[in-house]
């Protein structure tokens, strides 16, 4: 006998699909089948079942081998590390729930740490732009119900957010968009002919690194001012054509991704894209939204913000919160040699940071809290495996449009394994003792 759990939330990307169905064994211990999820989401649920899974903490030995230790020993190492460090960095938080993030913030406050999430390498520059010029946006249901102009700028949902197009942005039939895809015009801006670009009505194959110029040219085109013959590799007629398509819609949206946040121009690319959106609200209704990657990176920013006032790159070392990417941001902290201890949770900097920012982690006291084996666990002193968030434990998380959805637990974790939150609570309580003693 099996049972089916409905309305399950997929803990992979910021699309946060909440219509997943999972079939589990009667005793709720084995996960048998996953329906409605994309291939990545399906793999995420199934991998929790792999037989070769690490279920207990391990210390990296000098000879390169690993020694299994108890959770209590892992708690002691982590608490001692944070208590001793002058400038510890607590990084990640994007693949864990808001409850764990909240406990993490208590720990960061007690140990006067720097805390940051994976916006550091995805939408941090978007946040900087939002702080400079704002963000006219909306929820994803608005796109489904109203949008007739869709732009994907420097993002490739066909690969990164597989169900985004069918649930929200291109295909669904909404209240005012009964014809689904037929009622929408799709513009894709990307230096490659991506699988998303192949579906576009208009593909602007921008010269890599010149998105800022192209966005500026669009704003000039809205105003009917003079333009050079070619901008960022695009003929001005084509830019003016795109500008007219955008102005002529009833409700439009710009989705943007790493293509603009990580290319030359960085925050200014987003800044100008937001300006384009503002301009378009003089002619019609337009919104803009970052395609957030990790399923709960948005939630981490929300929790940081209501508890400390800033969405990422928070520096608590002086006893109060400070924020200035370039100084308090993770990549700069690591490459500049600012920190002396590193705790990683719910992310994999080892795989996703430039190698020059990974090397320092291997040379300082470090803890990696992650259910998987990763490059980060591979270079950390201590690896603490935990239950899979969104699979073996629930908890709140925030979708890319900031809509909160409470994740569901579908199976039990392996015997005796702790969740992120449970492990962090033990660390917090131990740290309280150490600080009390000090």
């Amino acid at each position, binding site marked *: 006998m099996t049972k089916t759990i409905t309305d399950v939330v997929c803990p992979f990307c910021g699309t946060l699909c909440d219509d997943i169905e999972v079939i589990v064994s009667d005793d709720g211990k084995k996960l048998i089948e996953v329906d409605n999820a994309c291939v990545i989401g399906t793999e995420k649920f199934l991998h929790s079942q792999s037989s070769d899974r690490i279920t207990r903490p391990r210390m990296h030995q000098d000879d390169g081998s690993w020694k299994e230790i108890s959770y209590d020993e892992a708690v002691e190492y982590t608490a001692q590390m944070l208590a001793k460090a002058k400038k510890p960095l607590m990084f990640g938080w994007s693949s864990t729930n808001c409850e764990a993030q909240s406990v993490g913030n208590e720990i960061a406050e007690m140990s006067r740490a720097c805390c940051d999430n994976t916006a550091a390498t995805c939408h941090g520059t978007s946040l900087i732009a939002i702080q*400079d010029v704002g963000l006219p946006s909306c929820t994803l249901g608005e796109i489904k119900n109203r949008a007739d102009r869709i732009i994907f700028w420097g993002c490739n949902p066909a690969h990164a957010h597989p169900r985004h197009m069918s649930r929200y942005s291109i295909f669904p039939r909404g209240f005012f968009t009964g014809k689904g895809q037929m009622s929408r015009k799709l513009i894709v801006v990307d230096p490659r002919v991506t699988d998303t670009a192949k579906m576009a009505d208009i593909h602007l194959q921008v010269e890599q690194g010149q998105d800022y110029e192209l966005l*500026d040219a669009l704003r*000039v085109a809205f105003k009917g001012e003079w333009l050079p013959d070619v901008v960022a590799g695009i003929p001005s007629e084509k830019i003016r054509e795109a500008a007219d398509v955008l102005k002529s819609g009833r409700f439009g949206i710009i989705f943007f991704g790493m293509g603009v946040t990580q290319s030359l121009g960085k925050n*200014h690319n987003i800044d100008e894209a937001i300006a384009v959106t503002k301009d378009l609200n003089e002619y019609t209704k337009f919104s803009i939204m970052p395609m957030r990657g990790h399923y709960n990176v948005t939630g981490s920013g929300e929790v940081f913000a209501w508890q400390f006032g800033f969405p990422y790159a928070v520096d608590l070392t002086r006893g109060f919160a400070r924020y200035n990417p*370039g100084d308090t941001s993770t990549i700069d902290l690591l490459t500049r040699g600012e*920190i*002396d201890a590193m705790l990683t949770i719910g992310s994999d900097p080892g795989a996703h940071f430039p190698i020059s920012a990974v090397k320092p982690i291997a040379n300082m006291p470090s803890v990696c809290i992650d259910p998987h084996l990763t490059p980060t666990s591979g270079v950390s002193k201590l690896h603490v495996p935990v239950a899979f968030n969104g699979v073996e434990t629930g908890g709140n998380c925030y979708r890319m449009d900031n809509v909160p959805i409470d994740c569901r637990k579908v199976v039990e974790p392996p015997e005796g394994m702790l969740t992120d939150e449970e492990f962090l609570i033990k660390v917090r309580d131990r740290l309280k003792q150490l600080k009390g003693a000090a």
Partner: protein
Amino acid sequence: METVTITMKNAPALYLEADNVSPDAFAGKTAAQIAELSVHEGNTTSTLGKYFEVIGNAGATAADTKIVVKGDVKKVKYLGFKMTAGELVIEGNTDLYVGAWMTGGKILAKGNIEAFAATAMKGGELIVEGNAGNYLGAAYRGDWRGMSGGKILVKGNAGSDIGMYMTGGEIVVNGNIDVHALTHAEGGKLVVKGNAKSKVGGQMVDGNIFILGTIDLMMPGFKYVDTVEQEVAGVKAKFAHFIGDMGERHKKKKGQVIYGNLYTRV
């Protein structure tokens, strides 16, 4: 004017936040009292004297206090933070936030300085004999009130994002600059004697930029109007005059639309 010399003796393991190293914080204090001022290394607070040897007493006020910083201060932040008057001389290379939020007085950095120098500067003078970093004379994150007064002279090169949200004052760079200059500016003046890369004057509302060298890639929002002869920073030359950013909003003065001006030498 009294001179206080502080010399790095025990360099920090990490970085040192020395926001008390300013004529305002030193004013009216003896060498011994100055040595007691707090500094911060990560989450630990200790005294200036633990890292620096302090020689000389300060003047009665910031205005008659001069500070000379010697030794290796590569990993020291916030020198001249919020200073309002007096003088600060930094003999070697130093780190972030030199003269950040300064409103008066004079800073002379003889070496290189890193990012966020003269953030939201209101007045005074910053002279850098080496290179300056990114966000020189720019606004703090999220603030639309950038550098509004004072003078900055960089004899070497400067980084990216200089003068972001600038509303007044002047920045002169004798060398080259990196991408983005005077983004969102609503006033102020930038003179670059060397070359600029790209994205110069993006989203500029008002203000003046002079590039005596070359620009790798012009913003499409800048439109050629005429060629003018001008003298800037001691150089008399012919300039191609562009206005923009044409994509950005612009204010009107007496019915006339005011644009940002970008001059490149011809």
